[in-house]
């Protein structure tokens, strides 16, 4: 198992946002994480990315404990994420946002730049091309020079994915990546996620759009009130009585 989540508990005051959550994510899988609002999905991504510290439990990446690491060290281990409430660098344009995401991959040393060495320019062109390739991957390369604040909602979500891809991560945590998108955008992001997985990237995907999740994911974990109801293949999960109850209960 690439990623093992073992007995994770996280409380906020009296609320048990996560209550003994355990499941594993296989390498190369598109693993869905679903559940009603307030189930604890975002909190779990925060714990996985080092933003929130669990009260109990362990997270293992290829057997190594990572749950006490700060976010920047988790990122350095190859875990990238997006945010449910999109967090772009609004003062930068699109390609600059992606360049900022190259922090771990691009050296951009100060000295060659101070000395005006040609190698610095060559390096810069190479990294810019890479950043453009990330934008192209999510389909917004034509917006490269546009400030992030000018983008449409769907474009912002894609730019955030492009910025995460700049880390060249092993694991990508996506928190509602197609929320608020139209059908065409949803299909494109779905295609992108599938192609990333084909290349060996592992994806943990939170999404409310059930059709999207069912079609895309090889395994799905269902959370409700901070607890795992079940983990399994989409067909099994869809038939699970407690899942049906949780969803009907939430929608009623």
């Amino acid at each position, binding site marked *: 198992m690439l990623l093992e989540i073992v007995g994770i508990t996280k409380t906020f005051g009296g609320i048990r946002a996560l209550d003994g959550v355990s499941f594993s994510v296989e390498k190369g899988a598109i693993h869905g994480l679903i559940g009603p609002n307030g189930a604890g999905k975002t909190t779990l991504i925060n714990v996985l*990315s*080092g*933003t929130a510290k669990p009260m109990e439990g362990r997270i293992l990446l290829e057997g190594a404990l990572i749950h006490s690491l*700060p*976010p*920047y060290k988790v*990122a*350095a281990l190859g875990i*990238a*994420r997006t*945010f449910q409430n999109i*967090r*772009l*660098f*609004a*003062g*930068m*344009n699109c390609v*600059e946002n992606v*360049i*900022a*995401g190259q*922090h*771990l991959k*691009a*050296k*951009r*040393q*100060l000295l060659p*730049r*101070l000395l005006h060495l040609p190698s610095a320019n060559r390096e*810069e062109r190479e990294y810019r091309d890479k950043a453009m390739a990330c934008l192209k991957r999510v389909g917004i390369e034509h917006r490269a020079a546009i*400030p*992030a*604040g*000018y983008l449409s909602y769907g474009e912002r979500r894609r730019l955030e994915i492009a*910025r995460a891809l*700049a*880390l060249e991560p092993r694991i990508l945590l996506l928190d509602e990546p197609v929320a608020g998108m139209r059908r065409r955008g949803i299909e494109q992001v779905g295609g992108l996620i599938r192609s990333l997985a084909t290349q060996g990237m592992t994806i943990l995907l939170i999404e409310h759009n059930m059709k999207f999740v069912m079609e895309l994911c090889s395994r799905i974990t269902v959370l409700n009130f901070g607890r795992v109801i079940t983990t399994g293949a989409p067909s099994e999960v869809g038939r699970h009585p407690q899942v049906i109850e949780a969803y009907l209960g939430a929608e009623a």
Partner: protein
Amino acid sequence: MAFLMHFFAVYGNLVNFIGINALMALGLYVTLSAGQLSLGNAAFAGIGGYTAGILTMQFHAPYILSITSGAMLSGIVAVLIGLPVLRLRGVFLAMATLSFGEVVRIAAVNLTITGGAQGLVGIPNKTTTGLIFTVLALTGYFMAKLRQSRIGWSFESIREDEAAAASLGVNTTFYKTVAFTIGAIISGLAGGMYAHLNFIISPGEFGFSAAVQLLIYNIVGGTRIWYGPLLGATLLTALPEVLRGIGVTAGPIRMCVNGIILLLVILFLPNGLISLLSRSSSIAGPRP
């Protein structure tokens, strides 16, 4: 040429102070460019100024050694207080750096080696206009190149969104400390050069109002690019002279004009006067 010589005879000192203030403002700019609001940069200038002055007067150290030692000591102090203090955010960080500034000022008032409340008197005049503007130009060049480096990109990411920056692998604590320290070194250097320009330095010059003045230079000029604070410092340092030229001499009126300019900029040009000069979003900021 005759005109230039006349100009310098009359305004030479003003030109020097513009350069020094611009350099001090640049010191704060570095810290601000990483999103950290510091009110401690006047105190760093004080540490640099006192250190350099004492080395020159009591230990007869060569000028360049004195001012670089002052800058280095400022930098060392910044690392030491930066690590605990930079965990704080926004107003709390401002308060903590402000308290640090007060501690430095009170120390300067009470120590013998700093000359107490009277300050250091009789510091030899060794800072030349040429040196001031050479240092300023080199610092500006350094800023421009820093912005393109990994360090500069980290500062920018942290300023835009610290949590997002951390998720990209930016060690935010480290880079905030780097920003604070580079800022302190520049302010400390400016302080040492100021001490060797002004003949006398006293604790009050590096207190709260000086800290705020540095912030005002940055806000008025703009903090999205390194020459913003240069513009702010130049205009606001020259302003009293210009006002005197048109017959306004009273202190309170000058303070009012200062305040009005600050208010107008905050209200209508949130990214500073520099945003008038450029339409590029990286300088003028996002326009929603």
